[in-house]
């Protein structure tokens, strides 16, 4: 089945889902308002964005240098580092480590990187039980669903749906209030934190200068996941490295405000290797490529690696606001998803995502690192057409034809006249409300079109000049 059909089908399902529509509107409206409030007081917001862009540009252009610095520092702290080329490499390494240490259960914090490689499925297949500890992730793990937003994975679920889910899966009665839902999860998760032999997280930033892994959160599950179990594994995309500790002064001001509209998250963890208070605690850093070096090699697309996964672009995207995260078909939704999915996967798999955009540019405006997302969507569209993904012969013929006609003004004028005449055949009461085929049919499925005029501007100009 072609991707177009999937995306059109999935978005259709999303648009018909009234509950989802309500949830999306509430969530995105709230995020947008909170972000707006949070950045109003930051008069140097624009300067911060530009600085962040420059730091990321510099780092990505010297990624090998900073990664090696990071690794040396982490090892200096007593941490172990593993370079993983593919998602399978990551999963196999973690499973091997887990088996060696007799790990039976793993507590996980929310990590898009681990979702990307389906770590949980790999663990389960090896007889190791992963437990998501971020409340939103815990919910979708119970529901066996994919996340619908980068930072708020379960926004598509209502309180009622969650209560039903908990009642069914946890079998401790049906919680009625939000506080009861949270308390139920907390009790379950507390036991899991205390008994898990391993904690797996991602990282928001990895500081090369100091060998520090930086994690932001509001629930405290990262604190528990990284400090209680004996082994902490951080799966970190290679693009997450930043040069110096001081650079956090830019990124930590941008990330929470852009993501949740908070001035600062409830907890910020700075982890330098394994927990020193205990002798037998381990820290493992797994640096993941999984297609990132491919993006790195493409000068036009390299900027997509600057993303700090805040989710701001999702919230302001008119397409995301209507179809939600699951319609994108993988785990990265919204504008950033439309840019990195075809690259981390392939144009064959998700080459249609870049076309499902009106190119309004709101994403770039909201991006705290000023990533030129619209430009990258356009570049991917060009790549898709070069590679003839989707084989749209009639579209290609139409574009070729239009381009030819547009280089021959008299032909252009004549074709226009003909098309307008043709269009008038479908007009009634100065409107076209339906047509049997082609773009006119697609258009009139939802909207009217004014009946074409008898004379074009160029014809009128010519007449008036006589």
């Amino acid at each position, binding site marked *: 089945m072609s991707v177009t059909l999937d995306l059109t089908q999935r*978005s259709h399902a999303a648009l018909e889902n009234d509950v989802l529509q309500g949830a999306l509107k509430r969530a995105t409206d709230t995020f947008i308002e909170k972000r707006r409030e949070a950045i109003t007081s930051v008069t140097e917001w624009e300067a911060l964005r530009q600085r962040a862009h420059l730091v990321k540009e510099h780092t990505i252009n010297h990624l090998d240098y900073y990664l090696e610095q990071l690794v040396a520092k982490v090892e200096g702290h007593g941490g172990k580092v593993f370079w993983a080329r593919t998602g399978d490499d990551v999963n196999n390494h973690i499973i091997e480590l887990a088996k060696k240490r007799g790990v039976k259960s793993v507590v996980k914090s929310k990590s898009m990187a681990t979702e990307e490689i389906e770590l949980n499925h790999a663990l389960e297949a090896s007889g190791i039980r992963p437990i998501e500890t971020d409340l939103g992730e815990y919910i979708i793990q119970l529901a066996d669903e994919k996340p619908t937003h980068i930072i708020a994975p379960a926004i598509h679920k209502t309180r009622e749906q969650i209560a039903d889910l908990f009642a069914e899966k946890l079998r401790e009665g049906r919680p009625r209030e939000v506080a009861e839902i949270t308390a139920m999860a907390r009790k379950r998760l507390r036991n899991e934190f205390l008994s898990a032999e391993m904690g797996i997280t991602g990282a928001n930033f990895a500081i090369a200068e100091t060998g520090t892994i930086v994690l932001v959160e509001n629930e405290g599950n990262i604190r528990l996941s990284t400090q209680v179990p004996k082994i902490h594994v951080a799966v970190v995309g290679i693009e997450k490295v930043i040069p110096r500790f001081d650079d956090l002064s830019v990124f930590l001001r941008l990330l929470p405000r852009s993501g949740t509209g908070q001035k600062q998250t409830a907890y910020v963890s700075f982890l330098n290797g394994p927990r020193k208070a205990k002798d037998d605690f381990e820290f493992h850093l797994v640096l993941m490529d999984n297609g990132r070096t491919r993006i790195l090699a493409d000068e036009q697309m390299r900027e997509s690696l600057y993303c700090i996964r805040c989710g701001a672009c999702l919230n302001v995207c008119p*397409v995301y606001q209507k179809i939600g995260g699951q319609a994108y078909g993988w785990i990265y939704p919204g504008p950033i998803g439309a840019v990195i999915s075809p690259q981390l996967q392939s144009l064959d798999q998700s080459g249609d995502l870049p076309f499902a955009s009106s190119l309004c540019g709101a994403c770039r405006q909201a991006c705290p690192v000023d990533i030129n997302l619209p430009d990258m969507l356009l570049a991917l569209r060009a790549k898709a057409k070069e590679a003839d993904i989707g084989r749209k012969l009639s579209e290609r013929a139409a574009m070729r034809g239009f381009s030819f006609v547009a280089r021959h003004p008299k032909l252009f004028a004549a074709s226009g006249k003909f098309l307008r005449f043709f269009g008038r055949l479908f007009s009634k009461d100065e409107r076209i409300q339906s047509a049997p085929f082609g773009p006119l049919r697609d258009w009139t499925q939802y909207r009217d079109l004014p009946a074409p005029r008898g004379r074009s501007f160029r*014809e009128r100009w010519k007449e008036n000049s006589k």
Partner: protein
Amino acid sequence: MRVSLFITCLVDQMFPEVGEAMVTTLRRLGVEVGFNDAQTCCGQVAFNTGYRPEARAMAEHFVKVFEDDNADFIVAPSGSCTAMVRNFYRELFQDSNDEQWRQRINGVGSRLREFSEFIVNELGVEDVGARFPSRVTYHDACHLLRELGISEQPRRLIRAVRDLDLIEMEAPDTCCGFGGTFSVKYGEISNAILQEKLARIENSGAEYVVANDSSCLMQIAGGLSRVGSQVKTMHLAELLAKQ
């Protein structure tokens, strides 16, 4: 002051009255207006859909048409078409051999202005002598706003129209859902976005929604017509020509 019209293929073929209104107002302001009928289309549709070779061919034609027109400025009734030439043409001529083309493009692009931008920034005029008793709301077209940074000029021009009441709708800078071929490739999503815009327009209480881009207006008008709304669309040029 002599200007050359970049009429845009959409206005030329589908909304010629917008072009006529533009000419009327410019002449009223004492500007000499020329129109080179060798012009056709800037190539935005091909570029946005990923057909860069086809877009480049159209861009080359465009540059040839406009580079020798002896006009002080080239004026267009569209933010997206203006942005295509000023901001995106360079993407099509990135080769080391394209240095000459880049210069030629710059010669044209540096003289190109969107209609409201031309009147306010170049002529220094806000009151064009128009009168139109009505309640009007203004839609910020995406490329006009985010690619060209134009949002104040149209509002100043609209406020100066006599007996007109400019009402801001909620979030006027949100997309109408057109997006070129997106509107037909992903019609259902495009329409869902459009419905949000229509709701904001209705809630504003305006009788007219004005914008600087015929593409947005076509999308919005198409939706208003389909739901039988009394609200009408109007291009800024048409509004400014009202007396």
